[in-house]
C-alpha cells in the first residue's frame, strides 16, 4: 500500500486535488492507434453524477450491473466506516435519480453493530437470471466491526465475535421488488465475484481471503468448495459456450473450471503484461466483458499499468489471446504506482457494438505533463472498435467535487446509456453517460452479461 495514498486514505481524500481540465491524449508507445476524429464531440456524451445521498457513509461502488429487467443496479458500499453496511440502489429513469431498494444487512439479519465484520459491500457480485427476473447478489467483507479501526479476516478467522459471518447470497426479484430468499453462500468469507450459469442453474464464486472456487446449486441450495486458486483474488469470472468458467491465478495464468472434468486447470501461458516491470504476477482479471456474439471476451488486469486483451475461449485447447496493450499511460518504472490511480475498469459493450471502458489518466511531469485544463487525475471513457481494435477517447467522467479516475464496473441499460460505478468519494455514487441517439438501441443490454 502506498504511504501517500493508502486504501483508506484514498477513500477519504481522493477529492483533495482539483486542478482543472483540458484534453490532450498522452503520447505513448505501444498504445492502440487512436481513431481519426469523428463528427462526434465529448459534448455529445452527457455525463451526470448520481450520488448515494441516502447512504452518506458510502465510500465505494464496487458493483454496478444491468439487471434482468434492463435497469441499472448499483451497490452503495461502506467499507471504510466501522460497522458500515451496503445498500442496494437502482437507477430510476422516470425520475432520473436513484431508488434505494434496501439495506442489505437488515435483509440478512446481520446488522452493522453486531461487533463482527459487517456486510459492507457487494463486490462484482450481481448476477442476473433472465427466466425469472431474479438478480442474485452476494456480499463481501473488509468493513471493520463497529468498534475496530480495521479488519483482518486472517486475524479474526477463529474469533466467533469478530469473524465475518459469511457472504450472504440474496435472490432479489426485480419484478416484485422483494428479496425472495437469502442464505449464507460462503461461511466466514466474502464473495469477490459471482457468475450465473443460468442453463445449468449454478452460481460460481471466488472466496476471500482463501481464494477458493465455489459452486452453488440453485436447485438444491448446496455449495461445494472445489479448491484453492492462490492468494490474490481474480475480480471476475467468465463463462464460455461450453459452460466452462474462467478466471486467473496469482501469476497471470488462466484458470478454467470444466464441469465435465470437475477440475480446476491452469493454462500454460501468462497473460499479457508489461515486460519492463511486471512478471505476470498479479495480472489477474479485473474486469471482463463478453462480446455480443459470445465468441470472445475483452479483459483488463488488476495491477497498475493494467493490460487489455481479447480472449477467444472457444478456440483450441487453450484460448487464443490477443494483447491489446496497456490501458493507461507510461510512468516511472522505478516506483510502484498507486493501484487506485493507475486503473482500468468498467468494460461493457453498448448498443453500437463497440466496447466502452474507463481508464485513468493523471498528470505526470515527465510522462504526461497535462495542462491546467486537466484535472490531476481523470477517468477517461474510451471506445474500442472490435473490428479494427482502434480506440478513441469518448469523454471524461466529471465529478462535482472529487476526482473520478477509478471506475469499478460499467453497464449499459435497456435504453442504451452507459453507467459506471465510482470508487473514491464519500458519499459514493455512479455516473451516467448518455449516449448519442445514433449509438443507442432498444434492449442494448442484451445479450446480458451473466457475471458481476
Amino acid at each position, binding site marked *: 500500500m502506498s504511504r501517500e495514498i493508502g486504501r483508506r486514505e484514498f477513500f477519504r481524500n481522493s477529492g483533495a486535488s482539483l486542478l482543472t481540465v483540458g484534453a490532450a491524449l498522452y503520447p505513448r508507445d505501444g498504445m492502440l492507434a487512436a481513431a481519426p476524429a469523428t463528427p462526434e464531440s465529448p459534448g455529445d456524451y452527457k455525463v451526470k453524477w448520481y450520488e448515494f445521498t441516502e447512504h452518506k457513509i458510502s465510500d465505494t461502488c464496487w458493483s454496478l450491473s444491468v439487471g434482468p429487467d434492463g435497469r441499472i443496479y448499483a451497490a452503495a458500499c461502506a467499507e471504510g466506516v466501522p460497522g458500515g453496511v451496503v445498500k442496494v440502489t437502482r437507477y430510476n429513469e422516470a425520475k432520473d435519480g436513484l431508488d434505494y431498494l434496501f439495506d442489505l444487512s437488515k435483509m440478512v439479519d446481520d446488522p452493522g453493530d453486531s*461487533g463482527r465484520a459487517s456486510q459492507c459491500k457487494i463486490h462484482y457480485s450481481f448476477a442476473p437470471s433472465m427466466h425469472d427476473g431474479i438478480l442474485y447478489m452476494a456480499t463481501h467483507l473488509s468493513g471493520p466491526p463497529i*468498534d475496530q479501526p*480495521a479488519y483482518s479476516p486472517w486475524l479474526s*478467522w*477463529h474469533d466467533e465475535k469478530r469473524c465475518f459471518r459469511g457472504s450472504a447470497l440474496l435472490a432479489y426479484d426485480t419484478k416484485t421488488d422483494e428479496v425472495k430468499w437469502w442464505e449464507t453462500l460462503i461461511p*466466514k468469507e466474502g464473495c469477490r465475484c459471482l457468475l450465473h450459469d443460468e442453463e445449468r442453474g449454478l452460481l460460481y464464486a471466488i472466496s476471500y481471503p482463501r481464494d477458493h472456487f465455489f459452486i452453488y446449486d440453485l436447485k438444491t441450495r448446496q455449495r461445494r468448495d472445489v479448491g484453492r*486458486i492462490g492468494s490474490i483474488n481474480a475480480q471476475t469470472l467468465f463463462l464460455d459456450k461450453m459452460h466452462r468458467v474462467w478466471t486467473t491465478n496469482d501469476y497471470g495464468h488462466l484458470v478454467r473450471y470444466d464441469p465435465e472434468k470437475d477440475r480446476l486447470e*491452469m493454462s500454460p501461458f501468462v497473460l499479457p503484461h508489461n515486460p519492463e516491470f511486471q512478471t505476470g504476477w498479479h495480472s489477474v482479471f479485473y474486469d471482463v466483458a463478453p462480446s455480443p456474439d459470445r465468441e470472445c471476451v475483452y479483459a483488463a488486469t488488476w495491477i497498475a499499468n493494467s493490460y487489455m486483451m481479447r480472449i477467444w475461449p472457444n478456440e483450441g485447447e487453450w484460448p487464443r489471446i490477443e494483447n491489446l496493450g496497456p490501458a493507461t499511460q507510461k510512468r516511472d518504472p522505478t516506483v510502484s504506482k498507486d493501484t487506485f490511480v493507475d486503473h482500468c475498469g468498467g468494460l461493457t459493450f453498448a448498443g453500437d457494438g463497440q466496447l466502452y471502458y474507463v481508464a485513468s489518466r493523471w498528470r505526470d511531469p515527465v510522462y504526461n505533463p497535462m495542462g491546467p485544463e486537466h484535472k490531476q487525475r481523470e477517468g477517461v471513457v474510451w471506445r474500442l472498435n472490435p473490428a479494427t481494435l482502434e480506440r478513441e477517447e469518448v469523454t471524461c467522467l466529471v465529478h462535482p467535487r472529487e476526482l473520478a479516475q477509478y471506475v469499478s464496473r460499467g453497464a449499459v441499460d435497456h435504453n442504451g446509456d452507459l453507467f459506471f460505478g465510482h470508487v473514491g468519494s464519500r458519499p459514493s455514487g455512479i455516473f451516467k453517460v448518455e449516449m448519442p441517439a445514433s449509438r443507442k438501441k432498444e434492449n442494448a443490454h442484451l445479450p446480458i452479461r451473466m457475471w458481476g
Partner: protein
Amino acid sequence: MMSDEKKKIDLNSAAAQQEANNIVHGTFVKQGTMVAFPTGFPGATIPILADESHITALDVSPQGFVYGGTSGKRAHIFVGMFHGVTGMVLDMKAVDGATHCVAVCCGKSRFLACVNGPSGGTILTARLQPWPYDLIQEWGFERPHFEDLGGVAGEPIVHAVADASRDHVVGVTAHHLFTVDFAAPKVQTVAEVLACGRIALGSKGNIVGPDGQGHLWRFDCSTQKLEPQAFKLPAGRWEKSPAVWARSAETGLLFTADDDGQFFSFDEQRGFSAPLGKTMLAPVYCMAATFDGRVFGSCGSGIAKMFCYDPRRREITNLGAAVSLFERRRYGYVFGDAVTGRDGEIVFGEDDDGGHLWLYFPRIEAASA
C-alpha cells in the same frame, strides 16, 4: 449488538492507526521468516498440478535433502534441495492410482514412500538423489527408477518412520505393523496392532505408536518385539489419538498434543510429562523441533496459526498466520507435515491446492534470553 460506548472510534487518531496496523500486519508471522517454495524448479519447470500437490509427508535425508509426498487427485513423490547451489524441487514420480501419500522415510542410500489409493496401500522405493551440478549454471535430471514393494495385507497404510540407524523402516496399517529393510527392500508384516495415528522414533531408539485411545505400544527394532500398551497416555482428550509428533534430534525427546492442543513431552524412560501448555487453537496438524529445543507447529482449521513451544520458558507463543514474501508471495492456510532441515530451519509441507514447501527460519534468540 455492541454497547454504545464501544461505537465511538476516531479513525484519524494515532491509536486507531496503530491498532489498524497491528490488525493488518501483526496477524502474520511475528517471529522469524517463512519462504514458500513451489514444487518445481522455478524458471525451469512447472510445479506439481495444484490439485495433486497437497503435501502430506516429509522426511530429510542424511545430506539434508527434503523428501516428500503429496495427496490429491494423484499422489506425487518429490525431493527438495535448498543448500549448496541448488534451490529446486524435483517431482520424481506421479503415482497413478494413488491419492494420498502418508509417509516418506529416508535411509542412508534409499528412501521409501507409502501411498494409498482406492485399492489400498503401496510402498515404493528408490535411490536417494545425488547432488546435482550447479543449478544456476547447468543441470540435467532424470526421474529415478522406483521399485514397487507392493502393499501390506491389502490395507491402507497409516504411517511409517525410519529407525534410528536408518537401515529399516517401521510402518503401520490399520491393523498391522510392518518393517522394510533398506538393504534388501521387502515388506515384512511383523505383528498385529491397532494403529490410529502417526508413529515416532523414541528417545531410546524404539518406535512408539498409538495403541487405542489410552496407550502407546513400543516396538524394538533390533528384537522385532512389540510391547502393547507400553505407555499410558496422560490425562487429556485423545479421541483422535496423538497423531502428531515432533522429535528433538539432540535429546530424542518427543512432543505431542491432545485433541485440545494440550502439549506434552515424552521420553521412553520417563514417559509423558505433565501438560506443558496449550496451543491457542486445535487441532495441531504438524510440528518439528529445532536444535535449541524449540518446537514449531501449525494449529487450527481453515486458516492455521503457527505456534512455538519454548522449553526454556515453558510457554507456547502464537506466531500468527503463515505468509511468504520471498520466492512466492503467498498465504499459508493448511500444513500437513513438518521436519527439521539441515540447519535447524523447519520445513512445513502445505496441505492445500498449489501446495508449497515452506521453509521457516526461526528468530535467533538473544544470548541473554
